[in-house]
């Protein structure tokens, strides 16, 4: 069985490009050209140089000794938190800004939830001297204030999305509307493996550097390039897509996709799409999403702005639906607790999103010899205000 995208842009029954005609020329152009452009030697050379010297890749693979003892298994952390700008998001924005330049685009738009993608986009726009507009839900602007300041300092214009739940879904709607109004000069840098084809595949390819490096690093450190399991958090799913990518065909490598259950899966305040979602269309892609029986999209909830999304990338919908990946749901409280465990045992403050992946360790049973890689997708500086509120509960 193949888990790759087919020539029409589908992963099994999921994917495609369900966009209004106003976006068709841009999406069609990307579909025709993205692979050709991104695999040109000069493109690869420039991208790899930037990933090395500017981003700081390869990101380390770190054997977490104390965490391994606690959970009685061999835990390795892929340190995407150490990238420039503090998360995996920059892997994609470096790629897409170079692509936008090749396409002759003069203006960049992006959506952001936690602000990590917004910062990563604002960063590469500053680097290239290109105008940058970032759409961000009003609620997220409140709860991720440090990233808003960073984007502004980098010269980006941050526009609040005030409709709906005022979070990532609504920021994405506003970015799409902007693109509809400015189709010629603008490139839309989507931050996750969501949206119309070719975005899910394009973003997954730019993020695939994560698993490409993991193979080499695991071989060096354990003698085997394959781990037994990979754990990653999933909102739209870009860090998970990057961490799984080069292992898709190796069915012996287990994939664990960790979703945000918010206040609890059935609390009505959740973002656990694989459990609560049904098949439908969101942001131009046929996938699993949280919706009413009338097809109205349900506003999700997670304490973590980056996972607060009612859909899931079509690649993950297919992986979960086919049983290739196992979805695990983690509540706000479980994620907070896991963030403090990691911080106190390894001296690493994770992003609240990434903390969800660590909470899965409490819910899974691994053998002592199993090699388990957790993709530590981002660092927690942006979440200190949230963590601070819980010092009393979890910090003792």
């Amino acid at each position: 069985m193949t888990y790759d995208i087919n020539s029409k842009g589908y992963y099994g029954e999921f994917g495609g490009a369900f966009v209004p005609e106003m976006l068709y020329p841009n999406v069609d152009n990307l579909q025709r050209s993205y692979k050709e452009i991104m695999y040109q030697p000069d493109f690869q050379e420039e991208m790899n140089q930037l990933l090395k010297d500017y981003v700081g890749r390869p990101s380390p693979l770190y054997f977490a000794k104390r965490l391994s003892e606690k959970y009685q298994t061999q835990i390795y952390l892929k340190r995407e938190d150490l990238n420039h700008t503090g998360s995996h998001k920059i892997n994609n924005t470096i790629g897409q800004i170079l692509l936008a330049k090749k396409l002759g685009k003069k203006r960049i738009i992006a959506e952001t939830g936690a602000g990590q993608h917004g910062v990563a986009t604002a960063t590469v726009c500053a680097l290239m001297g290109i105008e940058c507009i970032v759409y961000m839900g009003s609620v997220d602007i409140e709860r991720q204030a440090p990233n808003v300041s960073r984007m502004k300092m980098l010269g980006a214009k941050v526009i609040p999305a005030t409709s709906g739940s005022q979070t990532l879904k609504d920021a994405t709607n506003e970015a799409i509307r902007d693109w509809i109004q400015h189709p010629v000069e603008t490139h839309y840098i989507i931050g996750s493996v969501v949206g119309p084809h070719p975005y899910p595949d394009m973003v997954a390819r730019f993020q695939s550097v994560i698993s490409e490096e993991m193979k080499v690093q695991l071989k060096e450190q354990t003698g085997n390039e394959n781990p037994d399991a990979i754990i990653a958090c999933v909102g739209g799913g870009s860090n998970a897509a990057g961490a799984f990518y080069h292992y898709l065909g190796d069915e012996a490598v287990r994939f664990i996709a960790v979703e945000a259950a918010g206040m609890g899966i059935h609390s009505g305040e959740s973002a656990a799409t694989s459990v609560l979602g049904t098949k439908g269309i969101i942001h131009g892609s046929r996938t699993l999403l949280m919706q009413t029986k009338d097809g109205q999209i349900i506003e999700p909830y997670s304490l973590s702005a980056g996972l607060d999304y009612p859909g899931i990338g079509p690649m993950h919908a297919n992986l979960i639906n086919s049983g290739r990946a196992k979805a695990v749901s983690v509540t706000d409280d479980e994620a907070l607790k896991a963030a403090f465990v990691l911080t106190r045992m390894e001296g690493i403050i994770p992003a609240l999103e990434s903390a969800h992946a660590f909470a899965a360790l409490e819910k899974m049973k691994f053998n002592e010899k199993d090699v388990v890689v957790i993709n530590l997708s981002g660092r927690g500086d942006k979440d200190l205000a949230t963590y601070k509120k819980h010092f009393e509960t979890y910090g003792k």
Partner: protein
Amino acid sequence: MANKLDQLFEKKQSDILNIYFTAGFPNLNDTGNIILELEKAGADLIEIGMPYSDPMADGPTIQDSGQIALENGMNLNLLFDQINSIKKQASTPLICMGYLNQVMQFGENNFIRKCKETGVDGLILPDLPLDIYESDYKNLFEENDIKICFLITPQTSDERIREIDRLSTGFIYVVADSSITGNSKGISPKQIEYFERINSMNLQSKKLIGFGISDAQSFKTASQYSNGAIIGSAFIRAIKNGQQDLNTNISNFISSILN
């Protein structure tokens, strides 16, 4: 029963006035009344917006009206009931506009059957891709005589316009501006150049121009280059902010366009 859209195009080829409104706005049960009043006031064609939580091709005015409609409790079953209740009194062709996910969740077969039963003549689904329409929907639509209307924009290539012309069974919705609905004023020379380019292609489909058509002047200009035009956001604003009762607001607005 013959499709009312076909009948309209047989008897009228110019200055066709298509008015868009959002079902369930301003009040939940205004749908039937708005249709009857529009017909009385002189609209040739009525486009009923099916309110959606995430209307990516719509601007703020229509988006807000949809949000209010959803809060009012609007849903598709209710909409079909409302349309059905005035079926015998109304003879104006009706088009429903919405997003593919709504149709998918209602069930494609169910949805088309309901359209047929209640006298809906055609559909505009901006996010329905041409190839998916042709492979999955075309037969179903044709068997039930439900027309499909596709959009074109200034960026749509000639080759694709030909493809859209081949597959359109209702009319071609000529997007006047590459902008979302309700966001532009007047018609520019560049737009006229675009309309003339489309006209020179001698397409088989009827063409209605929409987006940015808001008053008598823009309606008149757009109609010179097509079979007529579509007004949406301006009408929504008129029934939202109008000084009079709903029916007077409707007739005043239509008079302001036609006179």
